């Protein structure tokens, strides 16, 4: 039962998060920061998520090619 649960969790982790969890973490953090900027500081930070996505992709590629992930 525990093994089945583990493999079920591993499947969904691989399906959603994939090879590099840092990318998912950066996207989620960027969305949270955007929401804060919009709702608390009143800044229409439409540029933040695309910039974070490009940075996350670049960083992840650099890690993959330098053998760190």
């Amino acid at each position, binding site marked *: 039962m525990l093994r089945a649960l583990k493999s079920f969790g591993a499947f969904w982790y691989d399906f959603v998060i*994939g*090879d590099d969890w840092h990318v998912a973490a950066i996207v989620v953090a960027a969305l949270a920061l955007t929401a804060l900027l919009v709702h608390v500081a009143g800044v229409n930070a*439409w540029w933040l998520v695309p910039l974070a*996505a490009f940075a996350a*992709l670049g960083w992840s*590629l650099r890690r993959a*090619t330098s053998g760190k992930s």
Partner: protein
Amino acid sequence: MTAALPLVLTVFVACAVEAIEALTIVLAAGLTRQWRSTFQGMAAALVVLAVIVGVLGPTITLLPLTALRLVVGALLAIFGLQWLRKAILRAAGYKARHDEASAYLREVAAAKAAPEVAKRGVSDWYAFTLTFKGVLLEGLEVVFIVITFGGNQHNLGAAVVGAAIAVVVVTVAGIAVRAPLAKVPENALKFVVGIMLTSFGTFWGAEGAGVKWPGNDAALLVLVPVVALVSLGYAVWLRRVHRLSQAAARPPTAFSETEEVTS
């Protein structure tokens, strides 16, 4: 219908890539083992997928649009960046290109080696499970794309149409050639799908977080080319780095040795 065309096309391309991968597995199992158990495995996977769509589809369209855009946008952006990462690494030469012909040969070799065992009313359990797993996994990605794109635009019907056309086109092409669709530029298609998923995910996610995009929906017309340009830029940069590192690792040739001696 014209307004739904970008949605239908995006879902079509994304689902065609998944359908090609599923077809490779079905053909490998059917041609080397037996079609009966292969079709049983495919049918079982399609039933499971239909249940998932039936349960998740109506539920997701009932969610408030802002929350839906935030969650779906985040998932799509993460999913799209994963695709882009793999596609860029392949384009730059760091990862082997996805080759349906060699994937097919690997599946065929494994299928031929496995013994034929009857189980739970299925005459060839290996063919059944191979097809079930393959179709379910690739089908889940199709379901994910259909539900997120369709739910977000409150047009699940158009997304289903795009996915259905993709599956039918790939199936008909597969039956016609009776071989994996190796001629389809799958890596290029995956690159395009990664760009689309990342662009839509970024757009909807940010919208869900509360931003107002300059030009509203027209911002996508800028966002998609920008994501494409940045991704191509990364691919070109990594290809150069890869070539330089390979050249540096190569042992010096006889010509360069002679040149060094004479100079």
